[in-house]
């Protein structure tokens, strides 16, 4: 007994040690890529908001409470002590290591065969999608963690049938929603699955699902039971996420006068503009043909992660599990229809990878032809490194393509140079100089400035007053040039009154202080 106990401890300690090594590996990669100049919209958004909270002055409650997605945003807080610019990267590196630990710890409980653990380590070390998750500073890691926990508990529920697992799954879904709101639509596609579970749980002699359903519908008592159970299961799984979202919307309504503020305001979330911008940039190209076509989208997912087919094959005779595995396919197809002006980001590809690995974790032990199984598994995992790389390098989203380019070429990324230049100029302004800026689109510049306290931003009460009569509040105004494709999303653009009418009763005279391709900083006289 004691001997076994010791072995278990050793395994756990080994796992912890491997996780620490993986975390260090991610940190090194992430910081290296960051030093090469790689930033993405999401990271910069978090950096700017976190800096407002810790360095800004004024009414910050809305920024703290309503910035979305909330959980990844909060997760960057502790790491700002180290460096506000690196905080999101550190969070994602450590978070991805946590994801590894969660998966690996489930795996070692299920099987003693270390080969599977080896494959998992290899995957976490080299899969481009996972490296992107770990080193980009984006919130994907957290979504994947809760996605994994959600499905893990759903699978556990199938075997244990305890309220505990379904409740934990529900709580994980709540957390997932606060990492990515779009997962709320997952609730729609669980209806057939839940119906199937309810049907199977009825105490009937008949084994065939179709006949069970016929019997249930034709007997009033069974019908009532079936409906009650289906409804109860659905409620126990989804009422918490739905209620949480309703509460969150209510909070948005009471504090921002808009229930969808966290979804639709560029001050609350980064992707409202970034997604549209990314789509419009690509779609405006006359040669553009979107590879994201309904039905074929599922095929793309399978191409990205062929392991999922293998996972489906593993559960071939298990109705629940098959329906569970099909749910994310329906989900991404729906996302494509619902959010037709946005491309599917890497996160939605990676959920299939996580799900497929989860299936192998659950099913790894009982497989008969172990050697063949391992060979095929190894081959598919290696193949996925290529598909992962291919999908990232051919992504329609700039951030993803840039990442893989930098990872491959290790050349400096110049995309943020212009923002850094402008920020450097602002940093060099005389002490006490106040700059009016609209962080709906100017958040990258604000993120790079040294002192957020010198900026007058929309979260502050006197922002609108400053927009009306800038002379009374600020010495400089940051304006998005007409060439700036995002200028339309900001009030401080080339059509801003004081810029259009350089003199007037209410306006001071403006003079260009510093100009880049997309931004102009005006000085007020």
């Amino acid at each position, binding site marked *: 007994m004691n001997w076994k106990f010791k072995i278990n401890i050793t395994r756990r300690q080994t796992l912890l040690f491997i996780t620490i090594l993986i975390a260090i590996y991610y940190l090194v990669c992430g910081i290296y890529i960051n030093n090469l100049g790689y930033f993405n919209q999401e990271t910069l958004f978090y950096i700017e908001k976190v800096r407002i909270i810790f360095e800004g002055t004024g009414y910050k409650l809305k920024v703290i409470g309503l910035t979305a997605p909330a959980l990844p945003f909060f997760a960057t807080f502790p790491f700002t002590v180290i460096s506000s610019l690196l905080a999101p990267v550190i969070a994602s590196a450590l978070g991805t290591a946590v994801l590894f630990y969660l998966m690996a710890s489930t795996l070692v409980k299920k099987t003693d065969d270390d080969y599977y653990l080896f494959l998992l380590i290899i995957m976490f070390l080299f899969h481009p999608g996972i490296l992107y998750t770990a080193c980009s500073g984006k919130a994907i890691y957290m979504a994947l963690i809760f996605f994994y926990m959600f499905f893990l508990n759903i699978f556990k529920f199938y075997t244990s049938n305890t*309220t505990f697992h379904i409740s934990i799954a529900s709580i994980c879904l709540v957390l997932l929603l606060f990492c990515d709101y779009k997962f709320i639509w997952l609730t729609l596609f669980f209806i057939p699955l839940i119906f199937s579970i309810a049907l199977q749980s009825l105490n009937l002699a008949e084994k065939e699902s179709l006949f069970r359903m016929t019997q249930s519908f034709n007997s009033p008592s069974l019908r009532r039971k079936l409906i009650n159970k289906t409804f109860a299961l659905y409620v126990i799984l989804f*009422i918490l996420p739905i209620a949480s979202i309703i*509460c969150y919307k209510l909070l948005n309504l009471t504090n921002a006068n808009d229930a969808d503020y966290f979804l639709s305001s560029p001050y609350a979330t980064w992707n409202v503009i970034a997604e549209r911008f990314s789509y419009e940039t690509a779609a405006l190209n006359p040669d553009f043909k979107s590879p994201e076509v309904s039905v074929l989208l599922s095929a793309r997912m399978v191409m990205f992660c062929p392991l999922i087919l293998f996972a489906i094959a593993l559960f071939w005779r298990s109705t629940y599990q098959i329906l569970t595995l099909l749910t994310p396919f329906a989900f991404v197809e729906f996302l494509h229809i619902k959010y037709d002006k946005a491309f599917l980001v890497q996160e939605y590809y990676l959920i299939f990878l996580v799900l497929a690995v989860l299936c192998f974790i659950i099913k790894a032990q009982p497989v008969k032809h172990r050697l063949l199984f391992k060979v095929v598994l190894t081959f598919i995992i290696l193949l996925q490194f290529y598909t992962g790389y291919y999908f990232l390098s051919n992504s329609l989203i700039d951030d993803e393509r840039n990442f893989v380019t930098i990872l491959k070429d290790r050349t400096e990324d110049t995309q943020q140079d212009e923002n850094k230049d402008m920020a450097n100029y602002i940093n060099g302004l005389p002490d006490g100089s106040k700059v009016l800026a609209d962080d709906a689109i100017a958040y990258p510049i604000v993120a790079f400035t040294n002192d957020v306290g010198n900026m007058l931003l929309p979260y502050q009460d006197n922002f609108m007053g400053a927009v009306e009569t800038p002379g009374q509040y600020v010495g400089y105004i940051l304006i998005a040039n007409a060439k700036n494709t995002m200028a339309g999303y900001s009030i401080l653009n080339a059509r801003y009154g004081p810029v259009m009418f350089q003199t007037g009763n209410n306006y001071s005279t403006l003079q260009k202080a510093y100009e880049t391709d997309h931004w102009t900083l005006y000085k007020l006289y």
Partner: protein
Amino acid sequence: MTIPEILIKDGFLTEADQDKISNFSERSGLSFIKILLNFGYLSRKNYERSLSNAGMVFKQIREEDYDLDVLAKTELKFADAHLALPLRIENNKVVTLMANPSDELFIDYIRFTYDLEPEIILASDLDITWLSHVLLGQKYVKSAVFELLNRDPESSALTTFTTPQLIFTFGMFALVVMGLMLSFVNTTIIINVLLSSFFLVSIIFKLFLALVGSRFELHQAVTREEVRQVKDDDLPIYTIHLPVYKEDKLIKKLIWNLQSLDYPREKLDIKLLIEEDDDKTLNAVRNLDFPAVFEVIVVPFHMPKTKPKACNYGLHFSRGEFLTIYDAEDVPDTDQLKKCVSLFGKLPNNYVCIQCALNYFNRSENFLTRMFTLEYSYWFDYMLPGLDTFDIPIPLGGTSNHFKFEFLIELGGWDPFNVTEDADLGVRAYAKGYKVAIINSTTYEEANNEMFNWVRQRSRWIKGYMQTHLVHMRNPVKLWKKIGWKGFLGFNFFIGATPVTFLVYPLLLGIFLCYLVFDLTSIRSFFPDWVLFMSIINLMVGNILMIYVNMMAVFKRRYYELILFAIANPVYWLLHSWAAYKGLYQLVVKPFYWEKTNHGLSKVNNQAAPVE
């Protein structure tokens, strides 16, 4: 002709029964008449009919004269065992009441004790029981009331508020008033933040415990196989206390439920504890058309008139190795006693109590019974197992807690001044280093289906929680040392925080609704946005989590049709708040008053609970 011979002649008893009774009498020391009338052999009506046919006359004896000197020579337990009582000496004879005039042992006792011949008056065993307890039971009833107070005065709720507690309470009150006078806005902000945070923390803690509890929902403390392996011959005597007051409508149901118990009849020691002034229940027992399976104990009048006092009194007459309490309307799982014996056998010696789950058989009767079912499902299926897992004191439920008799005596029994004596006993047991276990067996009760009746019952519970908290928090440091930090926090969250939560809830809800409906600018001026933001989060998250925990519990019980009713919890809590304020008022003006819950109001027929 002896009484057994008369009964055999009339066909009310077989010779085989007589042999069985004689054997049982020899083994147990119980008298023939006691076994005959209390172990399901013969109904009282038939007994009287048979004796009347034989020319004997039953007399009404309550108004009979008695001589205290004569009574003093007889021990109540002996009189009770033989259902006989010497009253006075008249015409050089001892006037003796007897339910069995052929009880030679008792007749010899009279002759030997008084050196006189007895003059036997035939009377109903129930009347003799009543009279003997009323006349001779003072010693025992005083012990029932004052035993704990004498032995462990610090644990008695006789004193509701100690001086330091009063100083602390009024000190805090004065501090708040001073704060309000010096800085009204800041003080209200501090109070609001503290209250709403406390509300949220306590609910998150409950969710956490419920999740921990739900993790073990498939765990069976005792399996069916283990129950099957229990041998009847090895089973110990099991005492069941049935404290009742004016429950005449439930006596028939009670017998039905008790007969369904899977436990050898001869090894059951069932005591129906009836108050002295409760003729209704006594007459209901008298008028039963079928044999009773319990023994009646009449509790002499003594204040406070509470259930724990009755149970303490019953302890003096109990014979069991284990003891449990059921309410009159309870329907325990038929194998519950065997399960408990089996579990006690498996557990370490310091486990002195096993708490069974409680639930309701009339759950679908109306809104109140549905909500009650939700609440009990969550409490007994998740919370108590959660507390058990973390080794936090378990506030015992009102019934179906099974004790090791000797340890119960060692603990001093129940506190008769505490109106939730069960919760108090649970904490006291922990403080002495004993443990309480949870078992996978359920007792189905009758959920209160009438609102005012519900509020009465709930106000007593909440008042009892306040009493229990006050008693054990007389010396917080001492309590901390006794039950550890986990136990201390758990005790404060469950016993102390429960009434506070209910008292605070309508205030917070009221402020929230005013804010929502009227968008009161005055509220905004009192509370800055961050306070409102935090309070709204606390209130909403707290409510949602509690609703969810309730849903989880009914989901586990497979009461799917009740799941949506969990949403009505915020309304149900308002009823709790009403009861909490009533309880608080009573705590001050009449702390020991026992708000009687009327049972038997349900129109739903209970059925014997099947084995799970």
